[in-house]
């Protein structure tokens, strides 16, 4: 039988899916074991049990100075920044996507501009953002918006342009105004694509969030990672990295579920 026709059974499927994770864990555990054998205080590759203990402490115990549980505070402030940044980008992305896709006057004005703006590496703008928007919350949110908005606009305007011309002509024949066409023809077809685009831009959004927090902050997930890096607290860093991965995974899953529930007809496109 050809290899391309071999399909794993249910048990093998689970085994194969788990395999890379197990291999990664075993490789880490063995490497950590040998390093700790050499130097029991080694901080570079803490034993899995140490990481687990640290995680437990980070999730439940208050800080020595303030008594607050820092991990939850960090999570709350990072998620707030992320939500505002991604939310604003989604809103503007949708509006400009529809405008550029449906209104030729807007397309001629904005399409070229957005294409050029989207080429600017957002991290290169950081010093300018700091000077213009200060070091507070605003500049962190703006960095996320600057980072993902051009992508969203380009993706959504492209999708709008793909709407069959026939649909628009039909709507016009039925007497729809421009406004109605935007709302009743463009918007519903764009919403599932918007969720899809947000899912794809969440990775960069996290990247920009953490970059902003690393540079000037007093709380947040990225802030904590870059702070404890100063004394090689790999147990804390690993806990935070796993936590961020988990959060990102959950957000992605929630968006996928939302999309499936809200737009079952668009399933093929997801």
């Amino acid at each position: 039988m050809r290899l391309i026709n071999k399909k794993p059974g249910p048990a093998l499927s689970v085994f194969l899916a788990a395999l890379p994770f197990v291999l990664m864990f075993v490789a880490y555990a063995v490497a950590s074991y040998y390093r700790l054998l050499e130097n029991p205080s080694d901080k570079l590759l803490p034993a899995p049990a140490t990481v687990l203990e640290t995680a437990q402490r980070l999730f439940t115990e208050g800080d020595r100075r303030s008594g607050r549980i820092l991990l939850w505070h960090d999570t709350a402030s990072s998620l707030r920044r992320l939500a505002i940044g991604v939310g604003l980008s989604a809103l503007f992305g949708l509006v400009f996507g529809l405008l550029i896709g449906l209104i030729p006057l807007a397309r001629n004005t904005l399409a070229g501009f957005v294409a050029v703006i989207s080429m600017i590496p957002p991290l290169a703008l950081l010093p300018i953002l700091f000077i213009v928007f200060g070091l507070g919350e605003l500049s962190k949110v703006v960095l996320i918006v600057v980072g993902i908005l051009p992508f969203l606009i380009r993706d959504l305007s492209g999708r709008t342009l793909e709407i069959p011309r026939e649909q628009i002509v039909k709507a016009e024949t039925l007497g729809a105004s421009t406004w109605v066409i935007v709302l009743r023809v463009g918007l519903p077809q764009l919403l599932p694509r918007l969720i899809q685009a947000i899912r794809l831009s969440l990775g960069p959004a996290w990247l920009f969030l953490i970059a902003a927090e690393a540079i000037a902050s007093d709380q947040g997930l990225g802030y904590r990672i870059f702070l404890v890096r100063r004394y090689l607290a790999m147990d804390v860093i690993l806990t935070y990295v796993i936590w961020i991965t988990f959060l990102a995974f959950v957000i992605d899953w929630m968006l996928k579920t939302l999309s499936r529930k809200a737009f079952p007809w668009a399933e093929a496109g997801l």
Partner: protein
Amino acid sequence: MKKRHFLKTAILASTILASTAAPVIAQEKTEFRVAWSIYVGWMPWGYLEDSGIMDKWADKYGIDVEIVQINDYVESINQYTAGAFDGVSATNMDTLSIPSGGGVDTTALIVGDFSNGNDAVILKGEGDLASLAGAPVNLVELSVSHYLLARALDSAGLSEADLDGVINTSDADMIAAYATDDVQAVVTWNPLVSAIMEEPGANKLFDSSDIPGEIIDLMVVNTETLAANPDFGKAMVGAWYEVMGLMAAGDEEVLTAMAEASGTDLDGYKAQLASTQMFYDPAEAVSFTQGADLPETMTNVAAFLLDKGILGEGAPSPDFVGVEYPDGSVTGDPNNVTFRYDTTYMQMAADGAL
């Protein structure tokens, strides 16, 4: 059958990974690598490599020493701690918290200088230390800047809780940060201090000359590597004090090279040197290291590190790490000595025995 094969591969792969990740085991060797980063008192390391003086001394002892510049100071210490380098330029505080706190037995081979004004607390506008109360302060958290702030607040009867918090700000962005309206006060080091002091209204409240001898700049090396390779120590110290001699004599060519490497000009570099207590003469470094103040400074630093939670989880008390001094006395845990001040090699330089 298949499963066992996978398992074998996994174990093999991870063993290979482990062996590459294992720290360098001390043994006699002939090739050494040390890392340094830009700071007024460490510029000689760059000059040593570029001028060939390091090679000259390494050849004398039949070894090879490579001096590598790392742009990120903390990263250079982390790399040393991970075993990628045999030595690194670091302050006494960061040596205690990162390699020594991480169980890497480390020896201060060269005590190069102490900061005597290079680190400063700067307020925007009029006021004194008391006016920091209720204000946010931007600094590189957990660094010597943080330590300086703690000492400054102490001297004014304040504590960090009286501030509107400290905001971790990368040293790379400190000058841009100072220009924004959100920032009221910063703590940083040279050459940033001199750049910020040029801004109108910048008001220096406190600097390291108020706590002389507490922020010490070192070249630290792995203790086991040094013990197995005394020639490494001799070559490093010999080369270092040859350049110190040139600097003490005011060799403009040497100083200009260092100034340019640190991104300033001769006058700018001389101004920074003026707020640095360089030990040009090895005998001065030896007597400073043997001085009675050093154990007290290290105890203060350890208490500060514990207070900020920097010594890590395995550190139940500030005495967790033992620090040994040239006379053999120890502060902290005598069973966990991982930071040693050793004047043997500097003494050889002072005696002209290298």
